[in-house]
């Protein structure tokens, strides 16, 4: 009975809604039917099965896989701790009190450790950045780029709202130029022009150049996000702080920035999702990240023409990460609003 009323209320409440429901249902049914038939009979998923390690870590040496697992474990436990701190559950109150002040420090310290685990050196077998491919490279570059672009973005945002005309105009110029140009152009700039701009005997690794491009690009967008946050801090706060005798530097550092950044955390997560997706463009400048490796895999003689399977699988990986991040960001937003 309740099911019937639900149906009537949600699907058949007016005549045109009924018509819409029928049309949508037929279309949906046919699409699903086609997809299921294709996936179970026509598709050959061997291309994914056989190349799974390539998709995930690329040509990273097999004997060193444990290092990737350790990195994964570190990242996961850090993420879990952060989640607990942010969600602020009563049960873990003691733990939160203990960990919260150190959280950002732990994150910062984890970076060199992760870098060491992946790259080697200091007792570990070195692994050339040429061999970090697939999802590993995608995650690595997205994470490094967002972390590096953060301080630059904050500086640019402060510069753009600064009263000093030279600094303000420089910031505006940078932000608007970068935002007016496609990312692929910036990546081209980083791959081809950067070596020309640097001294002859100073060479940057190809992965580093790609990161430089991503950071240059991302910083401009970060600046706009942070600027939104800066504008949300009321003038009264600044005036009150100044009345207490703080000088401009400390007013910004201690009063304005913490509030501004708190307001834009969801926007930054959103930007991270965008950056994560944008790393796929690196395949166009010769890097073998997730999209790049799938293009190489599609060149394997036995798997030529298996586009749909490969792209759907890779798409699923991207989707999972992006969707989970956007879910997390929505939770975070709710938490911050409370």
């Amino acid at each position, binding site marked *: 009975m309740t099911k019937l009323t639900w149906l009537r209320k949600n699907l058949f409440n007016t005549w045109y809604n009924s018509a819409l429901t029928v049309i949508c249902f037929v279309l949906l049914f046919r699409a699903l039917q086609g997809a299921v038939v294709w996936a179970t009979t026509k598709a050959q998923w061997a291309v994914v099965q056989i190349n799974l390690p390539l998709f995930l870590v690329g040509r990273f040496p097999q004997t060193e896989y444990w290092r990737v697992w350790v990195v994964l474990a570190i990242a996961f436990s850090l993420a879990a701790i952060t989640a607990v701190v942010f969600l602020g559950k009563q049960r873990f109150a003691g733990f939160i009190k203990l960990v919260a002040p150190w959280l950002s420090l732990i994150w910062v310290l984890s970076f060199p450790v992760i870098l060491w685990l992946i790259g080697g050196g200091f007792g570990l077998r070195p692994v050339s950045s040429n061999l970090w491919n697939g999802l590993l490279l995608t995650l690595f570059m997205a994470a490094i780029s967002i972390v590096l672009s953060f301080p630059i973005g904050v500086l640019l945002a402060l510069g753009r709202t600064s009263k000093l005309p030279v600094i303000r105009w420089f910031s505006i110029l940078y932000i608007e130029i970068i935002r007016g140009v496609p990312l692929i152009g910036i990546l081209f700039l980083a791959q081809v022009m950067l*070596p020309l701009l640097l001294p002859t005997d100073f060479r940057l690794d190809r992965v580093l150049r790609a990161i430089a491009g991503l950071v240059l690009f991302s910083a401009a967008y970060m600046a706009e996000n942070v600027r939104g946050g800066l504008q949300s801090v009321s003038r009264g706060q600044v005036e009150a702080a100044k009345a207490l005798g703080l000088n401009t530097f400390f007013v910004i550092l201690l009063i304005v920035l913490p509030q501004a950044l708190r307001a834009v955390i969801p926007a930054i997560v959103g930007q991270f999702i965008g950056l994560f997706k944008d790393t796929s463009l690196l395949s166009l400048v010769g890097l073998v990240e997730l999209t790049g490796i799938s293009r*190489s895999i599609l060149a394997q*003689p036995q798997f030529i023409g298996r586009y749909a399977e490969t792209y759907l699988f890779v798409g699923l990986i991207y989707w999972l990460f992006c969707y989970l991040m956007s879910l997390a960001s929505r939770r975070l937003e709710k938490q911050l609003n409370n």
Partner: protein
Amino acid sequence: MKKLALILGTSLILTITACGGNSGQTTTTNTGGTPVAQTTGNGVRTAGGDRFNTIKNRGQLICGVSGEVPGFSFVGTDGKYSGIDVDICRAVAAALFDNPDAVEFRNLNAKERFTALQTGEVDILSRNTTWTLSRATSVGLDFAPVVFYDGQAIMVRKSSGIKSLTDLKDKAICVQTGTTTEQNLADQMRKRNITYKPVVFEDVNITFATYAEGRCDAITADRSALVSRGTTLPKPEDNVILEEVISSEPLAPAVAKGDSKWGDTVKWVVYSLLKAEELGINSQNLGQFTNSTDPDVKRFLGTEGNLGEGLGLPNDFAAKVIKHVGNYGEIYDRNLGPKTKLNLARGQNQLWSKGGLLYSPPFR
């Protein structure tokens, strides 16, 4: 006090404008009307002999390859590089370090390959690159001897009924951009006054994939690439390469211009591969030649004379190359010969003494 600030400020501004003026001046003198020959001369002075020592000190050769052309350079399922382009680099590493594995390979696409060489990201470009005048001059490459004589050709599906270039009128032709191929095609079609529809891609895999999917009626590339790639098409036997050869494509390794010492090293390592085949020396019978009385062989293997010294290499560098990598014939057979899936006849890529084009200057 205000005055002081003003003075300070103006002096600062003056310094800045002065700096700007200076840089502007240098810019104009650098770019304005300096003849190309002279700038290249400058290049020689600044970079002379550096590269060789850099590589020696690094203990490893960095070699730019395509990584995507079967038989020339590609990554096998074991993650190791192989192919004729790859073996050239391994030969150079063998001469330098007595170790053919002291090479790091970098995949380069057609667009970035020259910049990578010019900016020193790679020491040597061994990436089926056509030797052309403009690349040797305005792009600033220094070519080693040709390691593979190729020619551009066109592949079509047998069922299409296309027999010659004229049959391609208004047909879609898949072609890779950033190669001499694209321009050759335009030239040839213009000469014959044939209109066609180019479908152009940056990526060689995608170019072939698009042809395989049936988007194009024909695909054009170097003959060797068509043969090697043709074997990876879903139904290789359904495709045929047209007899007409569009252009000659001598493929050669290259180094950056302006470093003759490093250029010589690469050149003579390549020649040693040809010379060894001419002398009948290969990796299997090398031992038998160590006691040879033939002065030619003795000089070549470094048991007599000091030919290596001029290159900064050990005198027996050629022996090391042959020991590790084999002579040209062995390299060819291993990568493109009848025992491989590609099975390319040697044709022009035979020694001069057997009717081909390969020839080494004397080792003396």
